[in-house]
């Protein structure tokens, strides 16, 4: 296990920075942004920006956590990667949320942010290498002190052990000497057979605090002199607040101020209760919009009208799909549609800010630290080094916490009031001013060959652009790559295919939502495959397998989930089964859903779900299972009940009772199995929900229900 100097040359050597901590100790950085960093050994002082790992002379070992914990488990999986190579126990690592620095950029996302199932994949190589480099240096420092060969020493649980088997030196005593050594040219990563943490279920480090109420989310930030604030925004899309009456609000005890801010009218109070009463007493008028465009029927009609309009951006093309479709005697065609959805994080949006002439500190549950800093910079005009973003735990993210509206509220108010301010969004604010999962329409067309397999395949996606607002540089020639994920690069052998996107923006802000458009497109593609199988009179599993001859991993998850679910066994009368496959993030998942007649009252219920996931190497297998179980609940919630709609320019859903989320008694029995068919990890956070909706739609049709082509699905 020791460094033999024969391993692969460190491909990130130029990106590693070694330094001496002020006060002694070792600091190791990984520069994600700039490979032409200066000298390796530089004395880092104080704050040590860019540090990933610090070994203090008092024995503390600190890992900077550069990703946000929103339930997906990065507070355990990322430490596992470092601890494995550093030869320390998870209990020996302290975590600190990373500030904003170029070194913490998520290279898969191109910014310091958490999402799109990237965290473990992105950290897999650099965090293990950082641990290995630190361990190598510590072993060398010990060997030098003892006058023995480094190869003969062993590192274990935070200490280097002498070849005599008795003497040992703790890392704390070696950190300073190690920091003065040159960076190793090569390090050897542990072979999988020697892993003690990676691949073994671990108890999550954040769980103990979460079961005693000690976990700290954004809403739990308490600062001396902190005021509470909330902004009433105009509920009418495309309109602004035109008049407001605040006398009643101001007269309430505990209300400190009511003032106009950039995005609406802010109520400021001494506690949240006074704040909520103030919000209720505040009257806000909006400019009447004579003809509100945010109307459900109009928006849906607008998208539908683009299904056959001329002109669309080409996302993928192979063979002559259009020609084959034009020549075919029989073309199968189906249109699908998906509604707007809200994120509904259980922790409402919030941010706490402190702003002075010299400094701005933001305490925020965010998925996008770099954007939060940019927001504060734009509002305060302060230089970036004077702005600090402190990431709290997130009570859910799902893409909503990439947004900056709540950060902007807090920074603006803290600056105006000269006091720390916690901005709290109410649940109604959260529904009314979300950046929703987009409404989309889809047209699918296909021909079947004599073998009953699809030959020509056409898919047009119509919907508003998500990235035009969030990452405009990514949209070119009318193509928003985020809208076609899961429709292109399908695993299936489709000899002639054409995938198009027709942009149709709507007067409603749309954003990232768990799984992104992959969640739309997997539903559509898998549902259409199920329809093709029915038309061709083929078993939907057999049809998929026939299209996946060159895809052993995809075949394996499908075959395994079918075996688990007893796919070949006959079903009881009135029951139905559906199957679906999803790929993405370097992973694959297949699910079978079984529906059964309800005991009373007619209609169907979701009886069971089987899930087989291949995420390559599962760093924490129990964490992967948890993501699948939770993902199935999340997918089922969206497939069965969730829908945001607009009438006369306003969101119709005002409270949780208006937006049907899955509840405990609706959770089906779930069986999850992992297959590990690759040596590196794939992402899982967005994966679990993907096959649920199409598998459920297929199960309903198989049970004799009608073929439904719009979400949410009806079980009755």
């Amino acid at each position, binding site marked *: 296990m020791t460094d033999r100097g024969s391993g692969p040359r460190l491909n990130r050597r130029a990106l590693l920075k070694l330094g001496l901590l002020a006060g002694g100790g070792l600091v190791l950085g990984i520069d994600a942004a700039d490979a032409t960093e200066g000298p390796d050994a530089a004395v880092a002082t104080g704050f040590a920006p860019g540090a990933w790992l610090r070994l203090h002379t008092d024995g503390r070992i600190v890992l900077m956590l550069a990703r946000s914990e929103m339930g997906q488990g990065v507070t355990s999986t990322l430490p596992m990667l470092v601890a494995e190579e550093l030869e320390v126990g998870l209990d020996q690592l302290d975590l600190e949320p990373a500030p904003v620095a170029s070194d913490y950029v998520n290279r898969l996302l191109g910014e310091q942010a958490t999402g799109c199932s990237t965290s473990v994949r992105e950290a897999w190589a650099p965090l293990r290498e950082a641990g290995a480099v630190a361990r190598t240096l510590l072993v060398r420092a010990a060997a030098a002190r003892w006058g023995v060969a480094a190869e003969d020493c062993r590192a274990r649980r935070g200490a280097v052990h002498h070849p005599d088997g008795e003497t040992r030196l703790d890392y704390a005593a070696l950190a300073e000497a190690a920091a003065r050594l040159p960076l190793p040219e090569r390090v050897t990563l542990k072979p999988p057979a020697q892993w003690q943490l990676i691949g073994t279920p671990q108890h999550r480090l954040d*769980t103990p605090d979460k079961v005693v109420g000690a976990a700290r989310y954004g809403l739990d930030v308490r600062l001396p002199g902190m005021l509470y604030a909330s902004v009433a925004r105009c509920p009418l899309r495309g309109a602004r607040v035109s008049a407001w009456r605040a006398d009643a609000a101001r007269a309430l005890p505990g209300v400190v101020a009511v003032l106009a801010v950039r995005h609406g009218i802010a109520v400021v109070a001494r506690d949240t209760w006074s704040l909520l009463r103030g919000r209720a007493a505040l009257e806000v008028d909006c400019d009447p919009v004579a003809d509100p465009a945010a109307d459900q029927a109009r928006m849906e009609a607008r998208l539908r009208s683009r299904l056959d309009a001329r002109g669309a951006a080409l996302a993928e093309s192979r063979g002559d799909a259009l020609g084959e479709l034009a020549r075919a005697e029989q073309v199968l065609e189906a249109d699908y549609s998906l509604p707007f959805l809200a994120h509904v994080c259980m922790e409402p949006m919030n941010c706490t800010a402190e702003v002075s002439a010299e400094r701005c500190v933001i305490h925020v549950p965010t998925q996008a630290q770099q954007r939060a800093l940019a927001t504060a910079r734009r509002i305060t005009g302060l230089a970036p080094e004077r702005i600090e973003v402190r990431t709290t735990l997130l009570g859910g993210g799902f893409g909503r916490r990439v947004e900056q509206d709540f950060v902007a509220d807090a920074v603006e108010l803290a600056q105006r009031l000269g006091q720390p301010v916690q901005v709290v969004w109410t*649940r109604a604010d959260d529904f009314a001013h979300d950046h929703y999962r987009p409404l989309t329409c889809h047209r699918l067309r296909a021909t079947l060959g004599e073998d009953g397999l699809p030959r020509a395949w056409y898919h047009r996606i119509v919907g508003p652009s998500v990235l035009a607002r969030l990452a405009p540089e990514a949209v070119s020639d009318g193509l928003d790559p985020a809208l076609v994920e899961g429709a292109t690069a399908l695993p299936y052998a489709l000899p002639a295919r054409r995938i198009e996107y027709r942009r149709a923006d709507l007067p409603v802000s749309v954003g990232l939502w768990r799984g992104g458009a992959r969640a739309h497109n997997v539903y559509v593609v898998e549902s259409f495959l199920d329809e093709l199988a029915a038309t061709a009179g083929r078993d939907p599993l057999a049809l998929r397998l026939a299209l996946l001859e060159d895809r052993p991993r995809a075949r394996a998850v499908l075959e395994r989930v079918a075996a688990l679910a007893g796919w070949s066994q006959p079903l009881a009368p009135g029951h139905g089964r559906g199957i679906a496959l999803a790929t993405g993030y370097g992973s694959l998942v297949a699910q079978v859903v079984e529906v059964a007649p309800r005991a009373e009252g007619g209609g169907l219920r979701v009886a069971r779900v089987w899930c087989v996931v291949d995420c390559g190497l599962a760093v924490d297998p129990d964490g992967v299972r*948890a993501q699948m179980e939770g993902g199935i609940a999340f997918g089922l919630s969206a497939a069965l009940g969730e829908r945001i709609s607009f009438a006369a320019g306003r969101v119709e859903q005002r409270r949780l009772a208006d937006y049907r989320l899955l509840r405990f008694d609706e959770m089906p029995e779930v069986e999850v199995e992992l297959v590990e068919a690759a040596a590196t990890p794939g992402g899982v956070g967005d994966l679990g929900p993907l096959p649920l909706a199409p598998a459920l739609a297929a199960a309903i049709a198989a049970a004799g229900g009608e073929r439904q082509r719009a979400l949410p699905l009806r079980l009755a």
Partner: protein
Amino acid sequence: MDAMISLTLNGEPMRLDLDPDMPLLWALRDHLGLTGTRYGCGEGECGACTVHLDGQPVHSCTLPLRAAAGRSVTTIEGLSPDGRHPLQLAWIVEEVPQCGYCQSGQLMSAAALLAAHPQPTPEQIDAAMSGVLCRCGSYARIRRAIQRAANPEVHND
């Protein structure tokens, strides 16, 4: 200003000089430093704010302080003296929490259930737990953890 409210909080008698109309949730979170009880909706629809009032689960977001006067309130911080309530231990073994935000409400609801029905039937578990939303979908694990806590002899690892 207002009359003092006397109540017992996590076993300690106390007198609060707060607006008797203030929901218990905000007294706990903003005035007493007990932030373990969560705000999810403020309208009695998510269960994140569940506490015990004389042992019964209630939504603290809709319970005015005056309704707690003279009674005993238990929050997640007071569920056990050392964080070792059988449910808390089962929650750790089963790795229930994801983001964790709903879990105080889940645990308080489950604790009230087990206090009333030490060996709950699946239907009793459904009835007790369906009022607490979990957006992360930890429901399957919640069920397993409740069954584990209710049957320690079956799960002795």
